[in-house]
């Protein structure tokens, strides 16, 4: 490719929107309109003839380099195949508290967990698992959070009533006394589908703790 074609390629790649022909001319003040046209032709032909995953497309009075349609499906599929993220133990605990105590304020969640939960709540909110459902009375009228429809979807619940009742869990805990209660016991005790219990996740590892999108 000639050097103008290379410059055009770089600019078209870097630009967030299509670039009009006159704008492209500004890249090289010495280039003639004919030179510009032939450089664009060269770039297009290079992509077409040489076999590339991208192509040069004329849109809305300008030019753009786009991925070829035949690859978009594979790209989208690959994005779907991206390894699902797990919530960190901290996020799950916060979510559990909100699910069972909603509507609940941040301070109250922090009180139960014994640590600040600002970042975790923000992250759960960004993921659409919780939402603001109101404001508490009293000083500062703090925001109150509750779980969302997305929360139900993620856990395949029809409604919140399908969550095992927390007093059942508490009683189960109390009965077992000192002995740590395994999740499987809880799930069984609560009569939840064995499917949920089978999830190989009894040992939650440190995953993204309130991390922004992976």
């Amino acid at each position, binding site marked *: 490719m000639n050097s103008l074609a290379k410059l055009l390629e770089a600019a078209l790649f870097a630009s967030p929107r299509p670039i009009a022909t006159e704008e492209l001319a500004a890249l090289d003040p010495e280039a003639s309109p004919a030179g510009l046209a032939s450089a664009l032709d060269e770039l297009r032909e290079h992509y077409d003839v040489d076999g590339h995953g991208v192509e040069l497309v004329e849109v809305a009075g300008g030019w753009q380099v786009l991925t070829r349609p035949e690859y978009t499906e594979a790209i989208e599929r690959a994005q779907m195949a991206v390894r*699902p993220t797990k919530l960190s133990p901290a996020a*799950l605990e916060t*979510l559990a508290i909100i699910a069972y105590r909603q509507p609940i304020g941040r301070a109250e969640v922090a009180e139960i*967990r014994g640590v600040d939960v600002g970042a975790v709540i923000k992250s759960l909110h960004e*993921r659409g698992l919780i939402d603001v459902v109101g404001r508490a009375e009293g000083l500062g009228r703090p925001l109150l959070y509750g779980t969302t429809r997305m929360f139900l979807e993620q*856990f395949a*619940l029809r409604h919140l009533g399908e969550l095992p009742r927390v007093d059942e*869990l508490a009683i189960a805990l109390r009965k077992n006394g000192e002995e740590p209660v395994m999740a499987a016991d809880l799930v069984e005790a609560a009569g939840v*589908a064995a499917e*949920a219990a089978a999830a190989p996740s009894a040992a939650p590892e440190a995953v993204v703790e309130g991390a922004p999108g992976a």
Partner: protein
Amino acid sequence: MYLSPRLPVTGLTPTAPHLQTSSAGDPQGGNAFVVDFTGFNGPLDLLLALLRDEQVDIYDIPVARVCEQFLSRMHELQLNEAAEYLEMAARLIRIKAQMLLPRKEGSDDWEDPRAELVRRLLEYQQMREVVDVLERLGEDRRSRFARTYMGQPAAPPPAPLALSLGDLLVAVDRVLRAARRPTIHEVIPRALDVDGAMQLVRSILALRARMRLREIIRDDSEPWEVLSALLGLLELAKRTEVHLTQPRPFADVEIRRELAGEAA
């Protein structure tokens, strides 16, 4: 060579020409978020600049001279109020004083009062070297554009969440275990017998017009019996079935049948 306070100490490396241009700009040039009025990144930077100007051996710093110059540069740059520079000045003065103390002849365990300062200077200088590397790498990267077009194939959706109810319940389990002893109230069914107390009073008052509290509360009554009797009496009084009087503090309460109550 006189080092302009605008130039970072290590800004003259032959491999990183952009350093010169980057720091020779406007006074706050490149200081994206920390306003530095002096061009120095703190007292260590200023001190290193002085040492460079003086061409001294870093392991044998002439403290008295350097201290004097540090103070005069502080004054020049109007840093007399800056705590960080003041702290360094104080440190220099202290080292200067320690250097004047007589040393025991022939003793090996004399510790050079400058050692800690030298260690910090070298550590800082080492970090400045890394800054040079980072600055060059950052400049290289900044001279290339990544794709910014965000149209067609939409920005990749966030990775799906892998969640199971099991996970959530494990979390509940942890919360419950971690919570400072979940307060589970022992509730005894029908602990108070208010109705029974009311019945008792009514049945006594059916026989005579007045009675005393002592007749239904004995010294060996359980707390719940006392509470039941009190609540029952208050309820009866509220319903105007009885009239309660106490002649004086701590005296026995007198319970009298009310006419209105009789009528009801």
